[in-house]
Structure formats: structure tokens, C-alpha cells
């Protein structure tokens, strides 16, 4: 983390709704996310909190029933002539987005490697496609590069695997191929949408290490979409906690893990399985996320929040600044709010974790 790194992707006040048979679902309600060059941001939240939709918007992959009501996604890059350019990805026509941004500058790794490869095409061809599209490479050069990438992502016997079809590879191998595809046209930004959710636990760590390794080698900026705080702790520089289409807490990874301010983040951290706890029951946040078909009044989390204040029912809390990098949207941070600390068990737990980490430093 050098001083004042340059912002490469800047999502401002993003607001998206979906038209469904049941009515209009207001899925993204004013999201701000910053990604700086070379850094890793993790977007954390429960299913349906809008993590994926936000990043799909940046890729131009939103379903046809989605409407972007407002906001911008500013992407800053250096063009072929060495000039710095900033474009709003949301304003770009789809065709231009595909030709100039997707794959070439911003690439994506999807959640389920079992379904994200074309079953009728060899993996070699699928990796080379991006190079033909964006780099105008010759067949030979593309093939050489594809085999190089297969080696890079740790696929043994790359020459032979090049001619394999997806069904001939295991899940972990397929995810490596998907990563190789994402890297095929040298992107600046890699978006990983729950890249390890569908994989074996033993494979998860390896895939994460692989992505981190490649990030260093290729100087990528990475966005992780995940609900797994273990993944976050391992990879992220900054964390955005998302709830019901809003960012409820932002901070660097230490701030989120050791000094969380939002009751929702407390809940998420408490819900992580932990071997050292005396409690023999796994905590889970009561209730389920609100249905955004009927937009909640006040704080969307209030109904599930044991620390909710009266004002939570009436008004949505703004983001209160905690430190230079740390913000949280909870009325508990208002100067007039009663002093409420995070639950005792969680405090103990974070303390234990901190000591654990210090042992290794």
C-alpha cells in the first residue's frame, strides 16, 4: 500500500432496479466502491445483497430486465498512446464495451467453473479467443501464450490439456482454465465472483493463492465478490460490506476485522465458525435480508438488529467516518447515540484472533 495510489475503478452512487413479474425490485440503492491500482477490494454480503449485480453492471452483463437509474462507473486507464483516459462504463454502448473493455481491460472469473466453460470447445480455443479478439495475435503466438498461461495457472501437461474439452477436467482445473481465460488479454482489473464457492475446501486455498500470485506478477487490481470472510481475510486490502443493495461499512481489512462498527458486520464476524469458542452453537444473524420489492423504511438492517435504535425505523443512517479509510452506516456512530459496544463474545474472539496473528508476525 503505497501512499495515494491511483484510483482505477470508481463506482459512484450506483442505483439499479429490476423489473420482475412481482414488481420492481430496487436491488442496488446507491453504492460507492473505490478500487485503487494494484490493490484488492472485497465486497462481502449475504446472497441477494447485490454484490454480483454491482460488478455485472461494470462488465455490461446485467440481465435485460435491469435498469440503471443513476450513478456512474468511472474506469481510468492508459490508452495505446500513453494518455490517461477516464470513461463511464455505464454510458458506453454495449458493442464498444465488448470491443474495448471486456476481457482486454476488465476481466471476470465466475462462480461455477462446472458451467462457465463452453462444453463444445477445447479449452485451448477458449483461451485463445480473447487474444484473437483484442490482441490480433497470430495462431502460433496465441497458442504459445495460451500454453504459457496454462502453465502459469498451474495446469500440468499444458500442451496436452490445450486440446482437452472442459468435461475432461476437474472442477479445480476448470477454474484455473477460467482464470487463464480471464488473463488471456492482459487485463488491468480482475473481478472474481465467488471464485472458490463451488470448489472443494482443499482447492479453495490453492486457487486464492494462485490469484494472489498472479496479481503480483501481472500487477492486477482485483475485486473479490464473496460471502466468505475467510477469503476476505486472506486476500483483501479493503473490504466493502454490503447489505440490501447498500454499502454499510467500508474499511481496510484490519479495521473491518478488528474494529468493526456496524452491527451487521458484527453479525457476519460472529457467524464465522471458530474452534476456540466456548459456545457450542454456531451463531447466525436472525431473520433474512429484506425483500427489496418493498423497500424498507429507515435502516434496512433494523429488523434483524438487536442493537437497533428508534431512529433506525425512521431514517436511513448516513455513512459516519471512523478513520481516514473506515466508514460505517449506523446510527450507533452518531454523537447522540447511546454507547453500545459489540457483543462480548465477539470482542473476545477478535482479541484472540489478534493475538493469534501477532504470534506469526
Amino acid at each position, binding site marked *: 500500500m503505497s501512499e495515494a495510489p491511483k484510483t482505477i475503478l470508481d463506482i459512484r452512487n450506483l442505483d439499479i432496479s429490476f423489473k420482475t413479474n412481482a414488481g420492481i425490485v430496487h436491488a442496488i440503492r446507491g453504492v460507492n466502491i473505490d478500487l485503487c491500482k494494484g490493490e484488492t477490494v472485497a465486497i462481502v454480503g449475504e446472497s441477494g445483497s447485490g454484490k454480483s449485480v454491482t460488478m455485472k453492471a461494470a*462488465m*455490461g*452483463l446485467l440481465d*435485460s430486465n435491469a435498469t440503471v437509474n443513476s450513478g456512474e462507473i468511472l474506469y481510468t486507464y492508459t490508452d495505446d498512446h500513453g494518455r490517461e483516459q477516464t470513461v463511464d462504463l455505464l454510458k458506453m454502448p*454495449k*458493442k464498444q464495451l*465488448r*470491443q474495448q*473493455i*471486456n*476481457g*482486454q481491460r476488465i*476481466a*471476470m472469473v*465466475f462462480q*461455477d467453473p462446472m*458451467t*462457465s*466453460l*463452453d*462444453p*463444445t*470447445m*477445447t479449452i485451448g480455443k477458449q483461451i485463445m*479467443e*480473447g487474444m484473437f*479478439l*483484442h490482441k490480433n495475435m497470430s495462431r502460433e503466438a496465441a497458442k504459445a501464450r495460451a500454453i504459457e498461461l496454462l502453465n502459469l495457472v498451474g495446469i500440468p501437461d499444458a500442451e496436452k490439456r490445450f486440446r482437452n*474439452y472442459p*468435461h*475432461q477436467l476437474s472442477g479445480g482445473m476448470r477454474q484455473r482454465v*477460467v482464470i487463464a*481465460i*480471464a488473463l*488471456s*488479454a492482459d487485463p488491468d482489473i480482475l473481478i472474481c465472483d465467488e471464485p472458490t464457492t463451488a470448489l472443494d475446501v482443499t482447492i479453495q486455498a490453492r486457487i486464492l493463492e494462485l490469484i494472489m500470485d498472479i496479481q503480483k506478477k501481472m500487477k492486477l487490481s482485483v475485486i473479490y465478490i464473496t460471502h466468505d470472510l475467510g477469503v476476505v481475510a486472506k486476500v483483501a486490502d479493503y473490504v466493502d460490506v454490503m447489505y440490501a443493495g447498500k454499502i454499510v461499512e467500508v474499511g481496510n481489512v484490519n479495521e473491518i476485522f478488528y474494529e468493526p462498527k456496524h452491527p451487521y458486520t458484527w453479525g457476519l464476524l460472529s457467524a464465522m465458525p471458530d474452534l476456540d469458542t466456548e459456545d457450542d452453537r454456531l451463531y447466525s444473524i436472525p431473520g433474512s435480508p429484506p425483500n427489496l420489492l418493498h423497500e424498507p423504511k429507515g435502516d434496512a438492517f433494523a429488523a434483524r438488529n438487536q442493537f437497533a435504535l428508534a431512529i433506525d425505523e425512521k431514517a436511513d443512517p448516513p455513512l459516519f467516518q471512523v478513520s481516514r479509510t473506515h466508514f460505517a452506516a449506523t446510527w450507533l456512530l452518531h454523537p447522540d447515540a447511546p454507547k453500545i459496544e459489540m457483543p462480548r463474545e465477539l470482542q473476545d474472539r477478535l482479541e484472540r484472533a489478534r493475538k493469534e496473528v501477532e504470534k506469526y508476525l
Partner: protein
Amino acid sequence: MGKYVCKRLGMALLTLLIITFLLFLLVRIMPGNPFPSERMSAEQIANKRAEMGLDDPILTQFIRYMGNVLQGDFGKGTSLYNGAPIRTVLSTAISNSFRIGGVAILLGTLVGLALGITAALNKGRFLDGFCTVFSILGVCVPSYVFLIFLQYTFSFRIPFFPYFFDPTRFAFSSVIPAVSLSLFTMSTIARFTRNEMVEVFDSDYVRLAEAKGMYGRNLVMKHVLRNALIPIVTVLAPLVVDLLTGALVVEKIYGINGIGKLMVDAIAGEGIDYNYVLALGILYSALYIGIMLVVDLLYGVLDPRIRVASKGEEA
């Protein structure tokens, strides 16, 4: 691969033999006489039966019949077209049916694919709705109703095409039956293509291709069509057989001397013509088995997941 094809061919021939035997038995169990019995005395019939060896044990008859068939001799009609060898009559019928059926298949498949693709690319818009309505109509209304409608419109109201089939003006007079036969195939193919494509468009691998930067025609040609076509091949196979073997009613109404009409005549004529029914039965079965074999092999070409593993290359 070669070994697999040989195995499948062997199985196909065995299947055909079993079907032929069953047909051979069934024809003899059917009520009725193989001869135009109203015009013959009991004595004449008995003589005729003896002459044709119909009183021999069934197995002897079958072996004799198969021996002839293997030499390409399907015998002569017992009540139909007295005297002419079945092969000659059948080859004219096959040529008529296959030519008209072939045109119908080609027309149905090509237009069906075009309609389906158009509908899928315009999902939820007017063209999609139009194609859906068209397919439902095409599937629900029998081909002979279309035939009568086309006959009425383009032969009677606007006297352009001939009323009935005319072998001397083959191409011209086969337009109406070919078009009416093709509508069912067209609608089925259109509906399947549309649904398969819409499904593939929603798939993760198309998302990934888009994330790679693919769009438009390139995306459809390289990732969508091939995956969508695999199930369509399965649907197409039985349709092809149906059309090649001629539509019974359409051939009858339009007066085409095809296999469909021949089959009707062989069963509903003055007697049940054993030899014609058998020959046609073998033809239908052979076609069906043959086309299914082709489809299975084609599957391997289209879909690498079903490709026959050679030399344990799997995994």
C-alpha cells in the same frame, strides 16, 4: 471409433432381422386374405396358397423369404399390381416420396432454423411472438389441411399450380405437397431452436464469452448455435423418417404414387398384400434404424462429451 461404428452396424442389422421376423408373423396373424378373395373361389385360393408356399411351416417360409430378400428380391404383390416385381413398383414410389419428402425436410429445417434463430434473437419482441404463433399453428394443424387449403387457394382460386400430382411436371407439381408437408417440421424446428437458443443465451459460458469481449454474430456463431443445435438433431431424426416415408393422407389426396399411398393400398385393398406390407415395413424400419445411427454418430461430432473415447483418453 471404427470399432464402435462396426458394433453399431451389427446391432442395427440384428434389430432389422428381428423386426422383419415379427412383421412376418404379424402379417400372417392379421385377419383377412392375401388375395382379392371376393373374385376367387375357395379352390383357386387354396391353389394360390400352395403355389406361394403359404402352407409351409412358418420358419421355412421365413428363411425362404429372407434368402430372396438378401438377393434383392422382394417377390411380387399377392393382390396389388399383379405381376410387376415389388422392387420396380417400390423404386418409383420411393423416388416420388423421397424427392418430395427431401424438399420438405430441407425447406422445413432451413426455414425452421431461420425462424427459431430470429425469434431467439428478438426474444420478447414482436417477431418472437409471431414465430410462436406460427409454430403452434404449424404443429396443431395437420399437413393435409394445409394441403387442401393450398390446393384451394393456388390451384382453384388462383389457377397456378396443378390440382393433382403430375409425374411429367415433377418439380412444379410437387410444390404444394412439399410445402404442406414441411410446415410441421418447420414449426417443430423453429420452436426447439428458439427455446434451446434462449436457454444457451442464459448460460454461464455465454456470460463468460461476453466477459471475454465477444458479442453479436461472433458470439452466436461460435458459442450459442453449436450448443443449441445438439438437441435439435435429436428432434430432427424422427421428423426426417416421417417425411421421407411420405405422409399417407397427403399422398392419397394429392394423388402421388409414393410409399405412403402404396402402404394404404396394400392394406386397404381387396386383400392384404403380404409382400408389399412386408417390403414397406422393412423399408420403414431400415430407414429409422439407419437415421438413428447417423444421428448417434453425428452427436459424437457435435458434442465432445458424447464422443466415443478412443484408447482410454478419458480423464
